[in-house]
């Protein structure tokens, strides 16, 4: 029973809950049991609050029994990336500097999932302050890819992606500044969506780079992502960059998915030798399938995309160095006083030295440099111009096609430690995902299969014009249906069985 419940999609579980077939307490307990069994090996979670989750679930069950009208995801468990603050639940953003901090309020997306009756299981691991592509920069140790525990689950939201890939949660929330939702989806065989900038409120999302950050769904199916986006998207007066207009239903877009006549542009600069062969072959097979489904495949050029990483690694550190100034040992988090005491500035210096990890220090110093007098125009100013050029590339492409397609990332999951000492190599992971953040347009990564050479998951990314998120759900939903039909079942059915770890844990008396 419990094994069956964790393998349901959120949509299926929601239906079973609505029919009274299953209770939210049963579904929540099944996921908590799974977490207890496998998270010792996967380490997707930084914090699990089973008691509160079961209380919430029991409350939903009571409300349902009393005849209350509930939404499609009411009673469905969810995991939350630790970048989103949660009232009464520790929120660290993967950093020592926030260890033990319990926020007094909920981030807006968290409030919305709670209002939708969803059951928050706990907080997921991430690279410190979302800086990274592997979760290896978490101050609390890495997350392991459920497909191969020696490999990275992607980052920064590796914990959220691994939690859904390992069936510890049906769905999760993530945040995407340069690919932190989509690249983990790519390497874990899951679905990840970065909505249009401003679609989901950033209120209570611990800011990395405010002009790039966007919160979005992390799921196993396109429909689940759509249902979750329908819950979290919408105007929030607490975020001045929140888009005021109402959104169409993304779930409807998936249910009506049809690619007949859809024009799909392949960005030729991101279909190159720099991508692993299995990543490219699965990408092209997916496009052929869509073509057979009636889509028209067109090659387009985006000549300025190659400048995206350079612009990103100026804009991001500049904004991050400013955003992270709030961690000053005064209002929340760690305080370290130098031996023999010191002024408030010396206390700040000692606190930030002790509380930040190497990647965070690297980017703060880089950002401080890029913003310093005499360099501002040459660095930050030039990067902002590249941003204009990337937007123009998108505008020109979307004048010809409805959506764009690229491989989500250059390679399958690499081994833990492989790129840790080479920041520039690590930054290259985001080559296909960063342009969307610079331009504010939405993107989705959908599983495209396994790379023949290493048997690891590969994703395909679709991008749409700003505010046209529904197009992503249309093409993503259509491709998923075609692929699952071809495969004879979801890709994650082929993921290794983690039950050997379950047995080992049982022998050690953990379960």
């Amino acid at each position: 029973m419990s094994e069956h419940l964790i393998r349901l999609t959120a949509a299926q579980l929601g239906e079973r809950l609505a029919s009274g077939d299953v209770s939210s307490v049963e579904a929540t307990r099944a996921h908590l049991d799974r977490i207890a069994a496998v998270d010792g090996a996967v380490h997707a979670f930084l914090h699990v609050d089973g008691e509160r989750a079961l209380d919430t679930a029991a409350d939903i069950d009571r409300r349902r029994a009393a005849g209350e009208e509930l939404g499609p995801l009411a009673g469905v468990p969810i995991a939350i990336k630790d970048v989103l603050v949660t009232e009464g639940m520790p929120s660290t953003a993967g950093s020592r500097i926030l260890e033990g901090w319990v926020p007094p309020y909920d981030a807006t997306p968290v409030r919305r999932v709670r209002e939708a009756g969803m059951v928050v299981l706990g907080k997921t691991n991430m690279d410190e302050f979302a800086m990274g592509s592997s979760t290896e920069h978490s101050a609390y140790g890495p997350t392991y890819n459920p497909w191969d525990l020696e490999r990275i689950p992607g980052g920064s939201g590796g914990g959220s992606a691994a939690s859904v890939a390992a069936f510890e949660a049906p769905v999760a929330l993530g945040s995407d500044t340069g690919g932190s939702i989509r690249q983990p989806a790519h390497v874990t065989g899951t679905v990840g969506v970065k909505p249009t900038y401003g679609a989901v409120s950033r209120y209570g999302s611990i800011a990395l780079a405010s002009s790039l950050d966007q919160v979005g769904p992390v799921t196993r199916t396109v429909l689940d992502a759509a249902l979750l986006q329908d819950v979290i998207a919408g105007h929030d007066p607490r975020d001045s960059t929140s888009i005021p207009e109402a959104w169409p239903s993304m779930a409807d877009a998936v249910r009506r998915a049809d690619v007949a006549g859809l024009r799909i542009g392949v960005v030729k600069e991101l279909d190159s030798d720099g991508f692993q062969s299995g990543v490219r072959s699965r990408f092209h097979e997916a496009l052929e399938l869509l073509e057979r489904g009636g889509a028209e495949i067109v090659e387009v050029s985006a000549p300025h995309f190659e400048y995206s990483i350079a612009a990103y690694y100026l804009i991001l550190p500049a904004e991050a160095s400013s955003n992270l100034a709030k961690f000053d040992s005064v209002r929340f988090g760690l305080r370290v006083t130098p031996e023999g005491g010191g002024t408030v500035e010396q206390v700040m210096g000692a606190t930030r030295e002790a509380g930040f990890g190497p990647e965070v220090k690297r980017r703060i110093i880089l950002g401080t440099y890029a913003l310093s007098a005499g360099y501002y125009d040459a660095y930050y100013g030039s990067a902002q111009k590249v941003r204009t050029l990337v937007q123009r590339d998108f505008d020109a492409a979307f004048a010809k096609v409805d959506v764009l397609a690229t491989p989500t990332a250059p390679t399958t999951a690499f081994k833990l430690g492989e790129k840790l000492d080479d920041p520039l190599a690590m930054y290259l992971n985001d080559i296909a995902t960063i342009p969307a953040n610079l331009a504010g347009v939405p993107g989705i990564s959908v599983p495209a299969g396994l790379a023949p050479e290493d048997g690891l998951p590969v994703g395909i990314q679709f991008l749409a014009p700003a505010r046209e998120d529904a197009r992503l759900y249309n093409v993503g939903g259509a491709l998923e249906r075609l692929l699952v039909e071809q495969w004879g079942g979801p890709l994650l059915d082929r993921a290794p069985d983690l039950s050997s770890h379950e047995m080992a844990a049982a022998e050690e008396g953990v379960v």
Partner: protein
Amino acid sequence: MSEINAEQVAHLANLARIALTEEEIEHLTAELGQIMQAVEKVSEVATPDVPPTSHPIPMQNVFRDDVVGDILTVEQALSGAPESDGSRFVVSAILGEEQ
């Protein structure tokens, strides 16, 4: 553009209020040099005729009525502070002895 030296990194660390160790400064000096060399690529296309973009979705100023909203209580606001006196955040001395 310019080479980065250890003295500059130490100065930046001071501006950013991070008490880096000598070893960290040495390590970062080499890394920042490499990273800056890579990101200087932006200057190839950032010509004077291209306007900068600060924000991905163009928006007008956002206003609201100047009334107190649903805000944190003093107790909530102080709940995560390393030190407080019940109504205010407590910090160590602002000025050093020599100041």
